């Protein structure tokens, strides 16, 4: 084969391969969404984090504003300590509250931030005061069944 | 300058425990065409590989230009091989390159010549073997005789001092046979080469060689000029030259007596 044609084909091949990689990185992955040097870290303590994982999204009003950076166990008060990286462009008041939610019935867990009304804004290293841990499905079902059986007991007894 | 380009003394070689060569002495003078003849499988090709340094002898020495081939390291061997050409049995052309690129191969690998000069040199070499017009064909498009001529052009690309031919006449039609034979003689004379031809084609090679070695069972059985060989009274040479069925080289592979094998003696 002519050398120039060969060069052309190989060039196109390499371009297509790099194009596929860029597509994977930008469109499929989330590279560049939150650069580590363009975020600030805040901490939130929860009594129970359920199935929350590192890198889970942090959302406010449903919009992703950051990611979970680290999950630790605090031996002093036996609580989970979660470090959140929030994008620098998103400023939140000091009295913002955090809650662990589940997307859909069985979906992944994320942290929802509810903005407060304080004049001062959160900064690097601050801790959120108001938090609400994960709702553990088993507990919920347990309560439900307990309640139901109690109810059933009440309603069934007269029938017999 | 050494007059003897290749000097082999007391050469032994064995594949594992099977001896191939058992004490061969051979000398090739500059400017000569030497033929090494013998029946198939007698170790002729092994001899060429020993001269080229791709295998090492178990005993004895091979000297090319006064250098002991077996004593050279990789670099020394490669330096020596640049001045040797070898024509393989079926040409061994690189099938993924055109005729032109095949002949240009060594020039491109070993020199930094500019492309126009390489082009001129390649066309000159191809012209010498009469195939200048075929330079952009692929090896698959060549006949057996043409492929061998291209391989010859490739072997002389770097103007070597020695060319070895492994069965250059095998499988050629009579015309190609004559062409190849004449070409070997002419190139040897005009380029001042030394040629070592391994062959079992007696009639064709006796027309053009200076000196002949007959090898049988790993030793040199007979030697002499073409005329001496033709008139030789040695039974082995006589059988070989005239192609007789039975003689010192028997028709039958060694076996038990025929009657024993058929079980006749038991009756």
């Amino acid at each position: 084969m002519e050398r120039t044609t060969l060069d052309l084909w190989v060039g196109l091949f390499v371009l297509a391969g790099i194009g596929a990689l860029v597509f994977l990185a930008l469109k499929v992955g989330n590279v560049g969404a939150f650069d580590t040097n363009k975020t600030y870290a805040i901490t939130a303590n929860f009594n129970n984090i359920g199935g929350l994982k590192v890198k889970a999204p942090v959302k406010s009003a449903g919009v992703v504003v950051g990611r979970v950076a680290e999950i630790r166990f605090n031996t002093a008060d036996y609580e989970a300590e979660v470090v959140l990286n929030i994008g620098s462009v998103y400023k939140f008041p000091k009295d913002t509250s955090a809650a662990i939610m589940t997307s859909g019935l069985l979906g992944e867990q994320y942290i929802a931030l509810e903005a407060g009304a304080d004049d001062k804004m959160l900064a690097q290293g601050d801790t959120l005061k108001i938090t609400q841990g994960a709702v553990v499905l088993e507990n919920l079902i347990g309560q439900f069944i307990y309640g139901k059986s109690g109810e059933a007991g009440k309603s069934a007894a007269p029938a017999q | 300058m050494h007059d003897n380009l290749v000097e082999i003394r007391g050469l032994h070689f064995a594949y594992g425990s099977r001896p191939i060569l058992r004490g061969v002495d051979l000398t090739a003078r500059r400017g000569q065409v030497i033929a090494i003849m013998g029946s198939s499988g007698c170790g002729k090709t092994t001899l060429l590989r020993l001269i080229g340094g791709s295998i090492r002898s178990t005993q004895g020495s091979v000297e090319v230009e006064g250098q002991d081939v077996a004593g050279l390291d990789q670099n020394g061997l490669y330096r020596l091989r640049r001045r040797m050409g070898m024509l393989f049995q079926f040409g061994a052309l690189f099938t993924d390159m055109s005729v032109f690129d095949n002949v240009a191969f060594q020039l491109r690998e070993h020199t930094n010549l500019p492309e126009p000069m390489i082009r001129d040199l390649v066309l000159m070499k191809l012209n010498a073997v009469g195939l200048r017009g075929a330079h952009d064909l692929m090896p698959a498009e060549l006949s057996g005789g043409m492929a061998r001529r291209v391989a010859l052009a490739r072997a002389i690309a770097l103007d070597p001092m020695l060319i070895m031919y492994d069965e250059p006449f095998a499988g050629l039609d009579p015309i190609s046979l004559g062409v190849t034979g004449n070409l070997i003689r002419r190139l040897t004379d005009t380029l001042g080469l030394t040629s070592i031809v391994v062959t079992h084609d007696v009639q064709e090679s006796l027309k053009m060689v200076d000196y002949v070695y007959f090898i049988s069972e790993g030793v040199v059985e007979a030697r002499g000029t073409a005329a001496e060989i033709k008139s030789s009274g040695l039974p082995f040479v006589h059988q070989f030259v005239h192609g007789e069925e039975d003689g010192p080289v028997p028709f039958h592979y060694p076996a038990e007596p025929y009657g024993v094998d058929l079980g006749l003696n038991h009756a």
Partner: protein
Amino acid sequence: MLDGVRKLGRQTIDGVWRLGVAMRFFMLTLLHSGICLRRPQLVIREIFTAGVLSLIIIVISGLFVGMVLGLQGYETLQKYGSESALGSLVALSLVRELGPVLAALLFASRAGSAITAEIGLMKATEQIAAMEMMAVDPIARVVAPRFWGALISMPLLAAMFSAMGIFGGYLVGVVLIGVDEGSFWSQMQAAVDFRQDILNGVFKSGVFGVAVTVIALFEGYAAPPTAEGVSRATTRTVVTSSLAILALDFVLTAFMFRGA
């Protein structure tokens, strides 16, 4: 009985010996790779034969695998009402596993077998011996460019396979079935991590590339110079490199995604 044990012993010794020779061959190839920098044209040629010529099979297979993933994934996910997770299912399966592994398997049977057959035939027709007699090292001139050409092609092909697969999943899931386009992409982006998933996938395919090309080159170079020898070596290249890909995939996955 004793014969069986003896046979086992011989096979073990043969296997270990072969592995050692292959490693030595690999080291020699790396050692003689300087020529690839001096004459990049040699490598470009091999990228063409290994990479560009494998393009069609990779692109088409990727598309179909993605489309099947879209169909099957949708069938399963809709039972739980989580069709919107289709994007992340397709993307994660492809980027982490199917892209590198299937691309490498296809590459082994398309380019690997071709490399073995080519080198085996070059040996059988004395082209390798001729090259040595012309004072050109065949490891540097023939083997090393093929190694680097195939090694460069492999991750690019795997990336193209994944990209085409995701496109196929998009075609079936969004265009054909009607999963919401926004949630398809956003769920995917939320689930796929660049370093954890994509770069690891690229790394995996690089490792597979090394394994496939070394096996293919070695089998070709060590093939007995007969028609039967070359055909056996070609078969062995496909079988051995497929097994090597799957085994390596397990090992790499165990290291990469442990606990994460």
